[in-house]
């Protein structure tokens, strides 16, 4: 029933080699990075395909919603309550992120944060300005669902939290701060 023209061992071998090489190429460049996040060539990442291998919850982007706690008083003037800066930070499932403030040496950063339930691993730390060695000083490292306190910056630089969400669901943190600092935000 086969009517393939000019079938020969040579052309068969060529067909087989071509299909194997092509299949390996497609697997390495596209299928494995996109389906399994296996990316031996690094091309999958360059093409942005590895994003597909993450589950829906993981694809969720880290998000920050600023919500300064201000209230409108009756006479129309803005009255600032206790915490001038308040943000909602979404930590996607199985992801970690950093939220930083620039604080000068000796200035104070007061904070209180709380998650919407789950405990997060966190590292509250500071990196001296201009330091490129990757050095950082850790102030507090723990796994909690809330924390509060104040920091007198031991050096000028970037201070803040690294939160890691080890659960399978996105966790929202409400972080409130006051003091002398500049918000650098999500890193």
């Amino acid at each position: 029933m086969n009517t393939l023209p000019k079938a020969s061992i040579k052309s068969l071998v060529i067909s087989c080699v071509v299909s194997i090489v092509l299949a390996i190429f497609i697997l390495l460049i596209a299928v494995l990075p996109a389906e399994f996040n296996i990316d031996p060539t690094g091309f999958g990442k360059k093409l942005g395909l590895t994003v597909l291998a993450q589950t829906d919850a993981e694809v969720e982007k880290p998000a920050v919603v600023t919500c300064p706690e201000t209230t409108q008083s009756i006479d129309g003037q803005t009255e600032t309550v206790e915490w001038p800066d308040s943000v909602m930070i979404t930590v996607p499932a199985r992801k970690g992120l950093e939220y930083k403030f620039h604080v000068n040496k000796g200035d104070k950063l007061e904070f209180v944060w709380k998650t919407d339930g789950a405990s997060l691993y966190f590292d509250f730390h500071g990196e001296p300005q201009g330091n490129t060695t990757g050095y950082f000083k850790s102030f507090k490292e723990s796994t909690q669902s809330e924390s509060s306190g104040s920091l007198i910056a031991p050096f000028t630089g970037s201070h803040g939290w690294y939160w890691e969400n080890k659960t399978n669901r996105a966790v929202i943190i409400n972080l409130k701060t006051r003091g002398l600092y500049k918000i650098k935000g999500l890193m």
Partner: protein
Amino acid sequence: MNLTHKNTLYIIGLLLLFFNVSCFAHGVDSNTEQFLTTTQGSAIVPFLYIGAKHMVTGYDHLLFLVGVIFFLFRVRDILFYVSLFTLGHSFTLLLGVLAEINMNAYLIDAVIAFSIIYKGFDNLNGFKLLLGKEPNTKIAVLIFGLFHGFGLATKLQDFDLPQENLISNMIAFNVGVEIGQCIALLFILTLLGFWRRHKSYFSFAKTSNTLLMTGGLVLLGYQLTGYFTSL
């Protein structure tokens, strides 16, 4: 060439007829049945749909079918081979679900991928050239049909079927699979029919089947990676 074209039209007509008839019959039947059985928790139409959708979007089954009918030009041959395939996969679909045979979906899908490679290789005359004779294609299609059925069974088992109405739901799924296969075959045969009128069909036969093998190899790699990463 003209004869081939006529044949193709004939096939399409036949399939249309069958498809319409079966669609109509099952449509009415299943609607009535759904009405009658909703209270008992059976879901004929959803399972019909799931079966049909699985086949229409099941590129592994479709690639194998393309391979099988690639060099079949006579209506009788096409119907015969497709029937063998249907017989094979229906048998193991019912057996797999009823006997609660739990197979690893990745490994079954890997065998299905292998069936595509086999058919591409066979179409390239690989077996004749290497072994001097080709394995009996009828038996091969039947045996691979059996594996495709186990693949379908694992998909159906994913739904955590309730024991009551198991048989009707399962048969609905099976009928859906055949409807889906008819729809897919219509498209494939229409396209192949047009292409077969041109000489390029034959000069590209080698390329086509090389690509078919490539598709099978990619699927094989995909399924095996899935299996090993899921361990």
